[in-house]
């Protein structure tokens, strides 16, 4: 009788342990592949990205446990197929994405980068909006379209983006850019104008 009880108890402990182990693993997998994507998009063009914009995006991502999606927007001339390889643009984009990932990793923020092609920056952004899902977009406003986005582009983005759009007011920090050789010191707190 005692033997039976010991075997039954051992079985119960084993089954219970197995169930708990399986459940914890399942939870781990769900955590790796969450149903709701929590991402912050940081589109940029050219060879540099505004440090104020990057700092704002990183701070938000860090606070909310979100993934930062830096997206390099590339213009493809009409003489080329839209989906063609763009090694020259890639040569500019890759070091930028590397630098952003370096800063993000230092602050414990996950990064999921993109390079999107379009006939114009707006077209590239439109394709990205169609393809990806995110909760916030962070873009720096600038005079003379130094970031690649004109005032019209930003108005268009506010209308089109199915997410909260954070347009940073122009400020002194706009001149400080993050490039491949940039150091890792953080910038000043940006003054943000948040619009839904």
């Amino acid at each position: 009788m005692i033997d039976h009880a010991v075997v039954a108890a051992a079985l119960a402990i084993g089954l219970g342990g197995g169930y708990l182990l399986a459940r914890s693993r399942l939870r781990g997998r769900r955590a790796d592949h969450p149903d709701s994507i929590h991402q912050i998009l940081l589109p940029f063009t050219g060879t540099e990205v505004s440090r104020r914009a990057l700092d704002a995006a990183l701070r938000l991502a860090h606070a909310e446990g979100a993934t930062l999606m830096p997206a390099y927007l590339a213009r493809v001339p009409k003489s080329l197929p839209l989906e063609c390889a763009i090694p020259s643009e890639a040569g500019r984009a890759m070091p930028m994405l590397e630098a952003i990932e370096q800063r993000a990793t230092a602050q414990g923020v996950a990064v999921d980068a993109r390079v999107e092609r379009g006939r114009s920056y707006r077209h590239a952004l439109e394709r990205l909006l169609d393809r990806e899902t995110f909760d916030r977009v962070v873009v720096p406003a600038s005079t003379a379209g130094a970031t690649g986005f004109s005032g019209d582009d930003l108005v268009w983005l506010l209308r089109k983006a199915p997410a909260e759009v954070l347009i940073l007011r122009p400020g002194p920090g706009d001149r400080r850019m993050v490039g491949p050789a940039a150091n890792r010191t953080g910038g000043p707190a940006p003054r943000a104008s948040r619009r839904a």
Partner: protein
Amino acid sequence: MAAAREHGHHKIFLGMAAGVGKTYRMLQEGQAEADAGRDVAIGYLEPHERAETSAQARGLEVVPRLRVAVRDVTVEEMDLQALLVRGPELALVDELAHTNAPGLLHGKRYEDIGDALAAGIDVFSTVNVQHLESLNDQVAELTGVRVRETVPDSVLACADEVVLIDLTPEALIARLRAGKVYPGENVDAALNNFFKIENLAALREVSLRQVAEDVESKRLVLAAEEPLGTRYGERLAADAPQAVGERLLALVRPQPSSQRLVRRAWRSAQRLGADLDLLWVKPPGGPIEGERERQVTALRQLASVLGATLLIEEHDDLVATVARVVRERGTTYIMVGESEPARGLARLRDPLPQRLMRATPPGVDVRIVAHRGQKEAER
């Protein structure tokens, strides 16, 4: 007698741009062949009003051109029929990529040349690198100028000889300024548009690389039906792995951390002038959907932007699959990310790089790309 031969010998003079001297060199070699007693005729020559070129053509027989009426104008084309009837041992034909006027037998000049070669006539021809189909997009991106007339790469690959006519950008611009390429009134426009140092330097690099790759990839295999040792039995094995050129293979997974590996691999490929393949060995079963599908799409997009090839192989044996792909693709370099710490029985196995080195052919290097998160955490 040309007709007695099975197939003509095709020699292509390749240049980075107009004015480097392709036509001149073709005529020079044609003259040397004629001096050696061969029957040489000009099938089509476009001297572009260049005095040196016209002078080089003197003394060579010219097959009369065909005059074709196109709408209200008359254009002159190579007369393929007349060339075949004349049947020289060697024909000199300029501008391989030329598009023929409507109504002719073939749409493209390289097809006319194909007929001449098939008739046993040796052909010397000329082409600029931006006309090559596979390079057309790349050159257009580099220079901002796109040409409409293209030649399939197979024409170059099947040529018996490809001769690169090389000239430094500075020397070409000096020729242009001296009026040796275009008439004086067109020089300024040319200098302001296509003939910029940066354009020419990029085109020169593309040309040099193209010829280098052509040399490397011409693997001679003997067609089974041809007798051993004959030139006609030699065929280009288009799918044969390259003997000398580097080819990188990056092992990826559909997750954001793979992007750093891809960036590193691409940078290495750029430095080596190598092609880049990305390989994801997908475990069997389980559809690609949800977040995984999104990440696969992102990898595919990144590969497309970089001009890399994304391969997805479904198999439960990673090492065996990588070894197979390495052999099939002629890979010389494998790049892998840092493995996650092994658990359970997996601790008893050798690390992935060691297993890869054992399974792949000798000479294939394996490089581990560190995971940035771990490195940052250690600081």
